[in-house]
Each structure stands twice: as C-alpha cells, then as structure tokens.
C-alpha cells in the first residue's frame, strides 16, 4: 500500500522524467508495429497509419498512462491551478478588480455571520465554552387538563423549581457541576432609588462560570448555601466597585444594603469575569431569597424561579445530558400531575432563548440578516460575472484553438471554474481577518456589551469558506458555460465573436441584480422609514418635554396610605413649578422596554381555545393623556374619582387598534372586555401611540389604559410636562421630592432620555441596513453599466454600420436604451414581487417595523443612469474607427 502511494507521489513529482522515458518506450512500440505491418506488405505510410490506429493514438496513450500513473485528478487540478494563476497574473488590473469586488461581498457576508454567530449562536461563556450547558424547561401540559398559568397557544417556557434543581444536581451523572440562579433588581443603599442587577445564585456559581480567583476577597463556599438566611453576604462586580465605591479596597468586609437588607461584601469579581449577563453587579447566595424579595420563600412553594446552567462532564454531549435530565424531570412531573414538561439542554446561546423561539422569530431574523448580506454578495458576484463574460469574449480565440486541438470541453470547463475559484482565494483569506475584526468593531460602534465569546470558531471558518466557494462558482459558472458555447469555425476564421448569438444570460443578469438590490433597498428603506417615524412620531417628539421620574415608594416600605398622600403632595407641588403644564402618574414609561402586556378577551368568549390576543397595558392617572399628549378620539378619559377606588367594572380608555380588533367597526363605547382577568368597560378611544405599534404583531391587539389606583399601584412614574429649561426643572423636582421623602433621590430624565438607549440601538441597526442597501445599489448599478457597456462593445460594428448608413445619434441612443431597459424593468418587477412576499413574513416576527414603502423610484433612477451612460457613449461612436476595429 505504502509502496503504491509512494510510487504515485514519485510519479507526480517526476512527471517530466517519467514522460520522457515513456516517450521513448512508446516510440519503440510504434517502430515495432510499423515493422510488423511492413513485413505484412504495407507501404511505409500505410504501416505508420495502421500502427497509430492499433495503438489508439499516441497522445491518448500518454493520457491514459498518465492517469494510471499519478493521481490524475490531483495532478490535473494542480495543472489547472498553475494555468489559472498564470492567466490571472497576466491581467493584473482585471484580477485585482474582480478580487476587490469579491472581497467586499465575501468579507462582509462572513463578517456579519461572525457577528451573528457570536451574538446568538455560541455558548455565552469565554472559558471552556464546549462544556457549558443551559437546561430549559417547557410546560407542555395539555390545556384541557392543566391549570397552566400560561395563555394557550404560545410556547410555555418556564424556570425550574428548587426541587427540580436539587434533583438534577444530585441525580444527573453527566454533569460536572450544575448551578441555578434567579435575577433580581434590588435597590442599592438605604433610601436610594438606584436599582442594580443582581443574581441570587447557588454557591457553586463561580465554579461553573470558571472564576477561580476573585479580584479581591473571596467567593462563596458551599456552607453559605446550606441553610436559609444563614449567609448575609454578597460578591460585587468590579464595575460596581469602581462606580459606586470609588475602588475603595476597604469595601471588602464592609456592609452594604440591598433592598434594605444588610449584606457583607466578601469579594469583588474582575472586569472580564464572564459569568455576568449584561452587567450583573452583585451575586448573593440564593438561600437569602426570602430576605431580599417579597413573595415568601420561593424555594418552598414549588415556584418556578431558577434558571439552571452548568458544565458537562468531558466527552458528554448535550443530547446525552438532555436524555438524562428528561428522565429526572419526568419523575418529578409525576408527583405534580397533570404537569408535563419538555426538557431541553443546549449550549445556552441566545438563539435558544424563549424570545427567539416564539414563532421561530430567531430563525427568521437570522436568515433575514444573513439573507441580506448574501444578497449583497451575490450582487457583487454578478458584477464579477459580467467582467468574466466580457473576458470570455476576449478569450474566445484561445478557447477555440484549444478545443480544436482536442481539449475536452469538460476539461476546459473545469479549467475555467478553477480560475474563478482561484479568484475567490484572496477574498477568503481577507474574510478571515474580517471575521475577527468586524464583530469587535460593531460592538464598539454600537456601544453594546461584548458577548463573552467573540473569537470566531470553526463554524465561522466554514461559513467564510462556503461563502467564498459559492461566490467563486456563482460568478464563474455562467461565463464558463458561455465561453465553451462557441462557434468554432466562426471564431477561428475571425468572423464572429463569442456569444454573439442571442445571449439570454446578460439580460437575465441585469434583471437578477436589480431584483436583488431592490429587495435590499426595500429592506433598508423600511428600516429608515421606521426610524423616521420613531423620531418624528407625536409621542416621541413630545417626549423631550415630558419628564418621567420613578417613585419607588414600595421599596421604601411605605404603607399604601402614606404612599398615596406622599404622591398627592408631590403631584400638587410639582404642578405649581414654573413651566409645568401637566402632571400625572403612570405605571409604565410610554416608550421603553418595561412594557406590560396581558391577554384580552371578550366576556362571551370561552378563554381556553385559540390564540389569545395580547394587549398592552398601562395604568395612568386622568391627566396622563394631557401630559403625554395622546389625542382622545371618542368618548372620555378617566374622572379623578375613578382612580380613588376599584369598581366592579373598570373603565378603560383603549387604542383605536384594540377597538378595531375587538369589535370591528361597531361603536366601542360602553362595550365590555376582560383584560388580564379584570372586567373592563370602554370609556374612550385614543389614537395609537408608538409603544402600541412597537409591539404590533401577530398576537398584539393594541393597547389599553386603565385608571391608576393610587391605593394599589405603588411604584409609579411621576410624569411632568414642561416648557423651558429641563435642567432647572430637574433640580427643583429633585429638591421637591427630597423634601417630601428624604430617602428618595431620583434623577429626573425626559422620556426621550429614558428611551434613548432603545432608540439608539435601533438607530445603529437601521444605519447598518441603510449602508448595506446603498452599497448593494451601487454594486448593482456598476453591474448594469457593465452589461450595457459590454453589449455596446459587442455591437460596435453593427452600430458603426448603422451610423455609416445614416442613423442619427438619437436613433442609436434609443436603440441601446431600449435594449437595456427591458431587463431593468423585468428586474424591478421581480424585485417588487419578492419584496411583497418578504413583507408578508415580517409581521410574524413582531419586530418593530412599521409601514412598507419600498423606495422604488430610487432604484429605477439609479438603474436608468447606468443604462443611459453607455448609450450616450454608443451614440457618439466614430463609425470609421469602429468598423476598422475588427
């Protein structure tokens, strides 16, 4: 075996020597045959001819032998590569243009994939990501039997109970360690209103997230979680230590207060600790839960509260672990009949998060984004196709000669494909840099927290490779076919150029390019439009003159009565401040992530079946509508009395969309519905605000406002509409509130400021899309220009003759434009159709996208320019020189 390989390798290496050797052997053979035939009585020429026949051709014999001798495929590929490299070197300008275009396409595609992959596809830990797992539970109890707390028809992901966590930890053999945690937002410091993100964790948490030594102090020990309430300790993050404690080393060992519970700081985690999920600032043993949060001891009531992650034993796969956990959870389910749970053990990537799983939203978003960048890549490839096509024309004679000398068409085809694949090599190498650089740059630019696991892994590598190969093949396939479809005799005699027969390929390319860039632009346009609406919409434009101040009176443990009177005092005094025109309370910010939604049904409906309608809910005081300027369309808003006490039927002010959803075109005033279990009666209709549209989608039915009950809803925002200087007002509001309740030290911000982060992120995203769209359009126009210009070159002779026999410039111009315009219009039509189809999908993912207006005039305009420019050039042809050209 070894020997055979060796001799093959030697054959490949010593190809030349071997072949010279063989030539001699073959010559001897021929001579012997000739002698034989001569002795049989043939003349010399006859004998030679017969000898060649008997042998089956000398060249063929050489080929046959060579194939047997070496690795024919590898050898011929090497030969193709050498040849291709030589050809490409000969035309450096062409090669670099093509390479640049492909690099743009492939690099961007791979870079974005790398970003997407680090953002949503990889385990969220930096150290040892392969063994990380997250166990997720889903309630799949059939609705008829269960008293499931979830609305039917949706994926019912849930957290784990203490019982489940302990069972998994103690019984599963596939895990090295299992941790669980629950996220809370406690108030830091006595009397402050600053919430931080904290996690109640099991005491092996840091082991699972691979933090061995803290920056300072120590971490939890197993004893800390032994008994409930026994360890009032906390580990804080370096960021918090810097921001709030001025990096004071004596913090370790001192006592801080979270939700007014004194906790001793025992350690500080370093900045790069990857256990944190987006700025978790403190970790507390989960056995401190009943001290830190209301609602009793979650660990005793079979409550779903723990998120479970951990590490697999070496060599164990996620699916093996999943099977094991499934058995354990099934046993527990049996004790809690009729509960049925589905178990999933995955690498903890964001794509498995419930938000992304709902209605396959994650998959759709990922494929949309990757689809868009792949479109750009294909547009770039099409440009390269055009370039290759024009070169195919220039090379037609070379190909004709090679074909007539007996080269196989298949072999030549392969040769041409090798060339285009070789063109994709540099783009591939370049993309390997891009995949490292682009995600980091994007995170920096968007000022987002970097995910823990940013370095490209093998999937990114494979993707780049795939993209490059696809690009090379896509760009080169059609030209290669075209090159070989030539009229041999015509080309050799010099009377025809390649593909001068009717080519359906080029117009098709133009159409495809325009269709692709149209889809791209429509996408980008859609985003821009959304952004525009976002920034000019009435509620947000006004948002700069509305101050929203959180009043977390609940955290200060006030009784409902004191809280109500405090709030009344603050409201009254705030209204008297200069420049203030309206003051109200609201349980939620008008725009932001802290939105509340709940199911909405009609009283006569049976609730169990079908997809529930989900409506937005905000509890507001009567003047809210004035403060935020939500226009009343019909009926009335709340009366002050209605906020004093609960009534059996709650009056509601609802958005127009909700009214339409519930009752169609009937008059909604006085009609009743059930919102989150409360029977409501429609008092008034207001215009939809952005927050309602923000969440608009399949299941969202719009928004509703209920009266803000001053006795109940305790944490609320104070909303203040003002004119004039925001800073001055902020100062007076702050001192006013401080006088009413010294422990409150709020930082008054406008609604716009509150939602800025939200809008900022989106702005960045939209800008990216717009840039991509513009890039695609530019590329497409270059392509269209190339195609039309090429067709002009091909028809130079014809045009020259036309001009010579008296065609006017205008005629030539029209001729070229007309032939160029057909495919342009076809492409635009196809693009429009695709855009419409895609637009149909968008609402299903409930992304914040509004209105659809593809900016077609832009595409058409750009395409026209690309057609007209070469047409003008054609009309100025000098007939004499053009006729001389061939």
């Amino acid at each position, binding site marked *: 075996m070894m020997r055979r390989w060796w001799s093959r390798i030697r054959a490949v290496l010593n190809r030349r020597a071997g072949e010279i050797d063989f030539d001699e052997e073959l010559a*001897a*053979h021929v001579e012997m045959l000739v002698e034989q035939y001569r002795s049989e009585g043939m003349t010399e020429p006859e004998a030679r001819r017969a000898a060649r026949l008997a042998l089956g051709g000398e060249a063929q014999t050489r080929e046959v032998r060579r194939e047997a001798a070496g690795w024919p495929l590898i050898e011929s590929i090497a030969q193709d590569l050498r040849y291709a490299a030589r050809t490409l070197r000969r035309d450096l300008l062409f090669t670099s243009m093509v390479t640049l275009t492909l690099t743009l396409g492939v690099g961007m595609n791979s870079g974005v994939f790398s970003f997407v992959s680090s953002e949503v596809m990889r385990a969220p830990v930096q150290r040892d990501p392969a063994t990380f797992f997250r166990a997720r539970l889903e309630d799949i109890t059939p609705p008829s039997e269960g008293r499931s707390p979830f609305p039917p028809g949706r994926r019912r992901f849930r957290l784990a109970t203490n019982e489940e966590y302990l069972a998994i930890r103690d019984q599963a053999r596939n895990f090295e360690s299992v941790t669980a945690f629950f996220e809370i937002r406690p108030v830091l410091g006595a009397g402050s209103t600053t919430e931080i993100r904290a996690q109640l964790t099991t005491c092996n948490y840091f082991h699972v997230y691979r933090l061995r030594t803290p920056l300072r102090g120590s971490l939890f020990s197993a004893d800390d979680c032994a008994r409930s309430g026994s360890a009032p300790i906390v580990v804080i993050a370096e960021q918090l230590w810097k921001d709030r404690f001025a990096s004071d080393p004596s913090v370790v060992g001192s006592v801080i207060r979270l939700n007014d519970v004194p906790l001793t700081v025992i350690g500080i985690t370093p900045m790069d600790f990857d256990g944190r999920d987006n700025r978790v600032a403190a970790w507390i043993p989960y056995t401190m839960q009943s001290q830190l949060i209301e609602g009793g001891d979650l660990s005793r009531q079979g409550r779903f509260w723990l998120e479970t992650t951990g590490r697999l034993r070496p060599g164990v796969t996620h699916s093996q672990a999943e099977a094991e956990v499934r058995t354990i959870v099934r046993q527990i389910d049996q004790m809690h009949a009729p509960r049925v749970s589905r178990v999933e053990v995955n690498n903890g990537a964001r794509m498995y998060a419930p938000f992304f799983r709902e209605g396959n939203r994650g998959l759709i978003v990922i494929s949309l984004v990757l689809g868009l960048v792949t479109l750009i890549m294909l547009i770039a490839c099409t440009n390269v196709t055009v370039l290759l096509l024009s070169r195919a024309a220039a090379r037609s004679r070379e190909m004709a000669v090679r074909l007539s000398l007996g080269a196989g068409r298949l072999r030549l085809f392969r040769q041409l494909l090798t060339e285009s694949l070789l063109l994709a090599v540099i783009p591939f190498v370049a993309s390997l840099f891009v995949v490292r650089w682009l995600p980091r740059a994007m995170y920096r630019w968007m000022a987002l927290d970097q995910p823990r696991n940013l370095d490209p892994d093998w999937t990114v590598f494979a993707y780049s490779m795939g993209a490059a190969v696809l690009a090379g093949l896509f760009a080169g396939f059609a030209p290669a076919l075209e090159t070989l479809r030539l009229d041999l005799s015509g080309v050799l005699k010099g009377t025809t150029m390649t593909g001068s027969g009717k080519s359906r390929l080029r117009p098709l390319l133009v159409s495809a390019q325009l269709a692709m860039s149209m889809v791209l632009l429509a996408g980008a346009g859609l985003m821009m439009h959304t952004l525009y609406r976002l920034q000019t919409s009435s509620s947000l434009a006004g948002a700069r003159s509305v101050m929203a101040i959180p009043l977390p009176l609940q955290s200060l443990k006030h009784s409902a009565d004191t809280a109500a009177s405090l709030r009344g005092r603050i409201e009254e005094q705030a209204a008297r401040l200069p420049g203030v025109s309206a003051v109200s309370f609201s349980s939620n910010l008008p725009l932001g992530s802290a939105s509340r939604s709940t199911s909405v049904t009609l009283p006569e409906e049976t609730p169990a079946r079908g997809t529930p309608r989900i409506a937005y809910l905000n509890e507001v005081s009567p003047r809210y509508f004035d403060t935020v300027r939500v226009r009343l369309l019909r009926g009335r808003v709340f009366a002050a009395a209605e906020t004093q006490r609960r009534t059996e039927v709650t009056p509601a002010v609802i958005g127009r969309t909700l009214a339409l959803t519930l009752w169609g075109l009937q008059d909604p005033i006085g009609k009743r519905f059930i919102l989150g279990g409360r029977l409501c009666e429609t008092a008034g209709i207001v215009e939809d605000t952005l927050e309602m549209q923000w969440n608009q989608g399949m299941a969202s039915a719009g928004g509703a406002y209920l009266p803000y009950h001053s006795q109940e809803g305790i944490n609320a925002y104070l909303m203040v509409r003002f004119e004039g200087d925001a800073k001055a007002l902020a100062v007076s509001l702050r001192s006013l509130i401080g006088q009413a309740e010294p422990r409150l030290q709020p930082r008054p911000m406008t609604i716009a400021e509150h939602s800025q982060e939200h809008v900022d992120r989106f702005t960045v995203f939209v800008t990216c899309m717009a840039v991509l769209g513009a890039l695609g359009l530019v590329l497409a126009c270059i392509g269209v220009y190339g195609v039309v210009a090429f067709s002009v070159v091909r028809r130079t002779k014809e045009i020259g003759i036309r001009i010579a026999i008296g065609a006017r410039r205008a005629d030539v111009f029209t001729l070229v434009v007309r032939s160029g315009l057909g495919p342009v219009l076809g492409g635009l039509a196809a693009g429009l159709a695709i855009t419409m189809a895609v637009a149909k999908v968008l609402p299903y993912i409930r992304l914040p996208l509004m209105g659809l207006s593809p900016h077609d005039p832009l595409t058409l305009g750009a395409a026209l320019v690309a057609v007209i420019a070469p047409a003008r050039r054609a009309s100025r042809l000098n007939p004499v020189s053009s006729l001389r050209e061939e």
Partner: protein
Amino acid sequence: MAQSRIEILQGTLDLMVLQTLQTIGSQHGYGIARRIEQVSGKTVLLNQGTIYASLVRLQQRGWILAEWGASDNNRRAKFYTITKAGRKQLAAEAENWQKLSEVMARMFSQTGEDIA
C-alpha cells in the same frame, strides 16, 4: 466482426498481462500486446496503448518490474518481468476466475425446467 470482438475490463487486462509475463517471461509492451492478440485469436479488442496503463498499475502494485534492454532486432525497449508477489497474485486471481467462470457457465446453462 465487430460483434465477435470482446471489450475487456480493466482488471481483466491486468490479469492477461500478468499471465502473459508468467508464460513467456520478460517481454516489452509490443510483445505483450501481440501475444494477447495471438492467444485470443484476435477476438479481444485491444487498443495496444491501454497496455501501458495496465503496466503502470502492475508496477505500482509491485507485481512486475521494468528495465531497459535490447529487443530481438537490437532496438532499445523496456522489458517487463513478473515478480514473486505478482505470481502469487496471479495464482489467487486465476483461481477466482476459474470459480467465477464455472458459476457463470452454470448460470447460463440453466433452463426454465431446472429452476422449476
């Protein structure tokens, strides 16, 4: 004429070459080709060139050796000799063939009644 000639399989040709070298000893490409034609009574359709692919394969497997020598009329030619491994291989293959051809003969000699 055309029908009476047999197209031969690659492996079969290798075997013929080996057998030829076993019977007549050291021989050059032309000699081997001519011998096969003679033995087959010209029923084998042979592009003499394909002999060389076969020779290369056999060499790679170490079943034959090649060296330059002089032909009958003093022409320089490459002569091939079967090796020990080659003989062993030939023996094994020949037995295989024997069995296979017997089976094939039986298969083709079967009539409908035999099966019933």
